[in-house]
């Protein structure tokens, strides 16, 4: 699950890159940039939560 979280981080970043390079301007571009960041935050939360069981099993 940690790897999935990290992959989501990368995916969110690629979404942001695509948004600024493909969409020219306006609300759509800004919306996709924010969506990319939201995907990254989701990935970070997933990666952090995936870290928890390892600790509690100790």
């Amino acid at each position, binding site marked *: 699950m940690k790897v999935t979280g990290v992959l989501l981080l990368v995916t969110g970043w690629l979404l942001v890159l695509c948004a600024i390079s493909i969409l020219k301007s306006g609300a759509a571009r800004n919306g996709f940039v924010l969506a990319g960041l939201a995907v990254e935050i989701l990935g970070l939360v997933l990666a952090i939560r995936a*870290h928890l069981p390892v600790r509690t099993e100790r």
Partner: protein
Amino acid sequence: MLIAPLSLAGLALINTGLGRSRNAAHAMLSAVCAASLAVCVYFVIGRCWHGSASEAAHTFFAAGKPWNWLGAVPPFFSGLAPDGSPAFLAAWFGLLSAALAALIPLGSGGERWRLSSLCASTALLAGITFPIFAHWSQGGGWLQQLGVNFGLGTGFVDTGGAGSIHVTGGLTALAIAWILGPRRGKYSHDGMPMAIPGHSVVFVLFGCLVAAAGWMGLNSAGAILFAGVPPGRLALVGVNTLLGACSAALTAAVVTRIRFGLPDASLSANGWVGGLVASSAGAAFMPPAAAVLTGLIAGMLVTLSVELLELRFEIDDPGGSISVHAVAGIWGLLATGMLGRFPGSDTGAFFAQIVGIATLLGFVFPLTWGLNAALNRFIPMRVSREGERQGLDLFELGAGAYPDFVTHADDHTQR
């Protein structure tokens, strides 16, 4: 620039003070070794990829736009005339920045990170992770050119290194804390954290004051080098840096007073440094009232983040590096986009900062985590159980930091 190295001294003192006395000499030596290695690695290879806006770089074209993605500068500072040119001063700034970034993960890996693997990890940070992002954000890279190429304000603004130094170092600190795991005895079997207080609050608070002097130098130098701020405007940088630190420290003291009944010295110190970190992004572009607001929120975020990471996520970060550098740094970048006043167009400035933050989370963090996880397979990072019990001073260095004093009764009792 001459006072900027004080930020290294400040961080080293803070990291040492927040650890136990049995690890004090190791913590200080780790700081010296990490800073030295970072400077040498940056001199040999890091600067090749970092470069500066006025030097050669690798560029490709996509979607009809140039993407300046990597510096193309010769190694060993060759080709740089020591004449006080912007390129030479940027190289000097890069040396200091690499050293400062290298000290940040030491806080999260404290008391359980072997010196040899710590040096190897530092080499990766100073040779790969830091220079790549620093090129993008400060060396004329694609993030800095977001304004020119994509109409996003004046591009990504990070004059003092909130992103390139602090968030990069803070995210590396998170990766290191994950890889190392918590200190023995930090969490009970049911996941409840135990308090392991640092051995010298005096070191920590003195380190804060020393670091503030260094930050003034770093923020001022960055503002001149990467944003072309005229020297007459440096007073604003100094004022905003100080206001950010003071308001963040006061907020942290008040928050801990409300939550725990008494103000907490080490968390207030973390708040102070968090305020300095948040000010690094755009101290040259903020009105003083905005710098105070940035500091207030940074102090609150740092305090709450320390608690969240320790209690909810079971991430053992003895120096608070993740909260102080990653969380406060990201907030500082965001605040610059929201509250900054730029000479050109403000339109899109906020989204330029968002793109920079997304790059830190989506590129820098996976990169630094992957590199350190791979390194851990070849050079194990964590010290042995016996080494951790004995303390790293005796185990790795053969002598304690305070040989004249009995500092821990439990070290000397029969088991």
